[in-house]
């Protein structure tokens, strides 16, 4: 699997893996909940959904995440650092790494997205607990 957002290497789970960095644009309330340990859930995903299929979406480009955050009255961006093994496991489990659907937006979005299926929320949450996925607040440089 090509990890398009690979920026560095680190040791996770006792092995050296490339880290993939993704961004998630959301509302402040939802972002703070996720930062403080709330797991992904079907209920929260449905409550926060604006459009598109139910799921959890991560973008490789913070500018794309800012668009999605900007659609909220007050938005924020979360940074997800994902180990290579975790990313491969998510993709093997059905997560799709590919272009962000353009929908009605007039221009293509930069970067790609990782679309986590609702059926993978348990897998994703487990990776967060095991610190194979780290969630941080993102600030624009």
């Amino acid at each position, binding site marked *: 699997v090509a990890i398009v957002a690979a920026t560095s290497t680190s040791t996770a789970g006792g092995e050296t893996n490339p880290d993939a960095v993704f961004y998630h644009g959301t509302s*402040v309330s939802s*972002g*703070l909940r996720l*930062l*403080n*340990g709330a797991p992904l859930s079907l209920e929260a995903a449905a409550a926060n959904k*604006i*459009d*598109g299929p139910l799921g959890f979406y991560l973008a490789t480009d913070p*500018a*794309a995440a*800012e*668009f999605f*955050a*900007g*659609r*909220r*009255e*007050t*938005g*924020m*961006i979360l940074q997800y650092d994902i180990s290579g093994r975790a990313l491969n496991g998510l993709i093997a489990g059905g997560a799709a790494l590919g272009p*962000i*659907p*353009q*929908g*009605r*937006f*007039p*221009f293509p*979005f*930069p970067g790609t997205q990782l679309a986590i299926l609702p059926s993978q929320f348990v897998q994703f949450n487990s990776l967060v607990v095991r610190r194979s996925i780290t969630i941080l*607040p*993102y*600030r*624009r440089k």
Partner: protein
Amino acid sequence: VKYTLKDIEILDDAIAIIRRNPIFYGGEPPRGARLAAALARDLIEYGDLPVSVDFLEGWWIVACEKDWLSGEGRSVYWSRIIPTPEVARESMRSEVLLTAFSKGLLTMAERKVQWIVKGPEIPKALENLIKLKSHGDFQGRIAAFTVD
């Protein structure tokens, strides 16, 4: 609780978000024709017809026989990124793009003119159009803006 509002960057200024992000306009900041086309396209696709577009002495004018912002809470269309999932995913209304990139932007409905972006003096032709619409039985809305 590990994180609070103090730890995050709150994104609540749609105009700033749009101006700093070329993804909203595809590279170069948009010229008037593209903005007028975006608004007209919205009106067409959302069924607010009939709509007309004109260009008078440096000002683009999008006029609609319906007041497309008459619904409750729609005045925020000028200042927020408003998705329209009922039409398509990854969608947004175009009014806020006009606010972000206009040097002057006004709208007229119900015989009242409202400046969204206070700009230069409007040309006589636009002033006359507004007077005409104000005194007739016009039930719609006009958006007029200048970019350059």
